[in-house]
């Protein structure tokens, strides 16, 4: 069994850089069981020893109030971890040491990494590592993580500890004062009566947490057979301490811990030189009262352009590539079920997954860059007032704006929000932001039913409607789902740092590959299901296939000019597809469901073929832009305009034959905006929210909200005299 080393430390202490420097490419990203907190594990070999490293979530404490802290505390208390490697930011030692005092209580052997010593030295801080080792009770190695300085020394130290040379690790405890220490000992005594409990968690740690009033410690206590006796002692201790001390235990404990940290820093480090740090100078501009917001908007615009304009280029290549692949396969394989599975199911399904990868990688790269430089915290600082009004967090702003490019990476971008509530609300409202795929549907529909100016206005209105709804739903979800105060906004503004290219690239690669493996399967399965619904039973009808082949042969036999032949063959193909789709399971479902949609899409009962819209909307579940190509198939009219004409045959058909009116067309657009997030988004919600429940909820509330608003549009429109 290799020794397991847990990396613990504050956020922004450079823990992940140390992790990458130790393990290189030999690491794996997953989730901690039951939560959506990322779990990074890796291995490295040194002096013939194999060592395993687990990167714990970065936390300021182990008080188990947040998901991250709970995960870290649980992992540390478990028997899985053999050694705790505490990474400390050398230029912010005092606050970093607060966590160290808690880590020491866990009783595991510890070693310390004093990271980013170059930063500290630049600020004139000198440190005595020997004295630090004595006071902390564990070996200390100085490193500069991003330049991999000190990493070899660290590996050698860890290998020696793995061989059992742990004499440098001593236990050191903060002294909480006579009264608290006395009660702690009594509580420890009671805890030790339950051997299983005492083995699962150091008794002193558990006692301390109980006195501090930690809910997680109470939960642990509830599993013990000695809970009655321990609980009794706890009440007695609390009553005693309340009488004897003027402050509550949590305050005194925090004061003692900071006292320890403060004393230690005074002992081992010289104070920082006075004067403005580079960070302060940068912040004078970047969070400036008047310049801060324009600069932020500029940076946001840059990221948006890089992600969705630059990112669209490889995206188009991929989409075109798969389209021609499908076309080639369709031309060379005999028509039938297997060909259709390949051409209409598998190839578009794979394409629907892969097209997201370039934007995901680029956008996540940009966001990692913002995070690593420290600007993300400033962005949140600048926008928090506005977002707080909406019941969201300052960090929710970037996902919401990026959602207008594509919801899928936008939801992934919500990862940067620490609080689970804020993250969940952001994830749930982001799909309401109208993305570029929905724009394609609006362009076709609005272009058909409105004059160009009104069409443009309608399209802009859709985007504002989406944003407005996101705000409204944010407030609503906050008050409906998470009653109680919103999570505190106590956010560190870390010093600006130049990110390491390597770690940004590693981050981009991770996000892309995680998307392919986790969300990809869901998208692919959904695409295949929609293919099945929209092709069966017609695709299996041998008679139809036979007829189609005969018609083709008849056309070829006419020996018309090549262009004419091709055009007639395309018409035949469209006719065959139309026949299959219009008699498919999806069509039957559409006929069953269309009464439900009648109030919004057919208020006057004049559209016998309203069920066809349901097919298009069902297909649109895979990806919203598919709504248009499906309509082309259903209405047997191409969506490519002929040269010199403003409207495509599909648009002419919609205008003249579908029975949609400008008002119901508007309702159709509203419904398309909201009715459900696309498959990619649903897959991402399920991954990021951590359960199918939330993914299902996002579909359900979309359907209800979309229906309701479309219906309101129809009712209000008719009342105002529109048809």
């Amino acid at each position: 069994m290799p020794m397991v080393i847990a990396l613990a430390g504050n956020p922004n202490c450079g823990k992940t850089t140390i992790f990458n420097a130790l393990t290189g490419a030999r690491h794996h990203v997953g989730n901690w069981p039951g939560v959506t907190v990322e779990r990074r594990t890796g291995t490295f070999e040194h002096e013939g020893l194999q060592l395993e490293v687990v990167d714990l979530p970065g936390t300021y404490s182990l008080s188990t109030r947040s998901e991250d802290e709970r995960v870290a505390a649980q992992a540390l208390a478990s028997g899985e971890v053999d050694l705790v490697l505490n990474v400390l930011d050398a230029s912010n030692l005092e606050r970093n040491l607060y966590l160290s005092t808690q880590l020491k209580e866990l009783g595991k052997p510890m070693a310390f990494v004093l990271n980013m010593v170059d930063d500290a030295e630049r600020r004139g801080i000198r440190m005595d590592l020997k004295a630090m080792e004595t006071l902390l009770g564990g070996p200390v190695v100085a490193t500069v993580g991003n330049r991999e300085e000190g990493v070899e020394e660290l590996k050698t130290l860890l290998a020696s500890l793995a061989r059992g040379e742990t004499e440098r690790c001593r236990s050191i405890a903060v002294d909480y004062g006579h009264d608290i220490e006395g009660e702690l000992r009594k509580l420890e005594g009671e805890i030790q009566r339950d051997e299983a409990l005492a083995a699962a968690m150091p008794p002193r740690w558990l006692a301390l947490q109980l006195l501090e009033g930690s809910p997680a410690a109470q939960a642990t206590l509830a599993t013990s057979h000695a809970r009655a006796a321990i609980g009794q002692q706890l009440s007695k201790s609390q009553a005693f301490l309340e009488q004897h001390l003027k402050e509550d235990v949590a305050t005194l404990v925090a004061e003692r811990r900071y006292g320890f940290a403060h004393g230690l820093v005074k002992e081992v480090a010289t104070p920082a030189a006075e004067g403005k740090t580079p960070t302060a100078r940068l912040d004078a501009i970047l969070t400036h009262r008047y310049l801060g917001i324009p600069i932020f908007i500029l940076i946001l615009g840059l990221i948006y352009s890089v992600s969705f304009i630059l990112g669209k280029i490889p995206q188009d290549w991929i989409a075109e590539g798969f389209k021609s692949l499908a076309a080639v396969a369709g031309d060379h394989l005999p028509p039938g079920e297997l060909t259709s599975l390949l051409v209409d199911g598998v190839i578009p399904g794979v394409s629907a997954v892969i097209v997201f990868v370039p934007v995901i990688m680029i956008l996540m790269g940009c966001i990692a860059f913002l995070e690593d430089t420290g600007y993300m915290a400033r962005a949140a600082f600048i926008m928090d007032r506005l977002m707080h009004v909406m019941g969201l967090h300052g960090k929710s702003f970037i996902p919401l704006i990026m959602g207008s490019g594509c919801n899928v990476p936008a939801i992934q971008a919500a990862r940067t929000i620490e609080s689970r509530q804020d993250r969940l609300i952001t994830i749930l409202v982001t799909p309401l932001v109208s993305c570029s795929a929905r724009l394609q549907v609006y362009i076709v529909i609005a272009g058909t039913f409105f004059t160009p100016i009104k069409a443009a206005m309608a399209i802009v209105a859709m985007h504002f409607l989406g944003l407005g709804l996101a705000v409204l739903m944010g407030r609503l979800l906050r008050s409906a789902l998470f009653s109680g105060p919103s999570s505190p906004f106590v956010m560190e503004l870390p010093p600006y740092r130049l990110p390491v290219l390597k770690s940004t690239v590693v981050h981009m690669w991770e996000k892309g590959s995680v998307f392919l493996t986790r969300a990809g399967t869901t998208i692919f399965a959904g695409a295949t299901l929609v293919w099945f619904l929209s092709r069966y039973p017609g695709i299996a009808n041998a008679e139809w296939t036979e007829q189609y082949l005969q018609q083709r042969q008849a056309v070829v036999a006419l020996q018309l000019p090549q262009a004419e032949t091709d055009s007639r063959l395309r018409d035949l193909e469209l006719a065959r597809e139309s026949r299959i789709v219009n008699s498919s399971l999806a069509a039957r479902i559409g006929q069953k469901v269309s009464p439900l949609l009648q109030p919004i899409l057919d208020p006057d009962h004049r559209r016998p073929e309203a069920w066809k819209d349901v097919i298009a909307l069902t297909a649109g579940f895979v990806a919203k832009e598919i709504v248009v190509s499906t309509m082309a198939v259903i209405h047997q009219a191409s969506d490519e305009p002929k040269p010199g004409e403003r409207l495509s045959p599909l648009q002419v058909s919609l205008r003249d034959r579908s029975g949609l009116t400008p008002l119901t067309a508007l309702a159709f657009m509203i419904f398309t905006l909201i009715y459900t997030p696309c498959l990619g988004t649903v897959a991402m919600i399920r991954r990021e929210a951590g359960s199918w429940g939330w993914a299902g909820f996002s579909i359900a509330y979309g359907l209800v909200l979309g229906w309701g608003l479309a219906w309101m549009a129809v009712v209000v429109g008719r009342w105002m005299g529109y048809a």
Partner: protein
Amino acid sequence: MTQNLSIPLSLLQPGDQGEVVQVQAQGPIRQRLLEMGFIRGARLRVEKLAPLGDPMELVIKGYHLSLRREESVCILVQRVA
């Protein structure tokens, strides 16, 4: 003497310095503030307000932190010249 009067942190202006007297928040927020260094006697300096007036940026224990008004009203401080 106004010097010894305890006032909410939210009343300090950019550039003002103070010393923490007491954290009045309760529950998880209190715990978080204590962990972040808001303990009796801790020195802090208000750096600036965000462009929209909230949250505030301050320096405590040698690092920069931002707090919303909601949190800063629950922290009692003494102004330090």
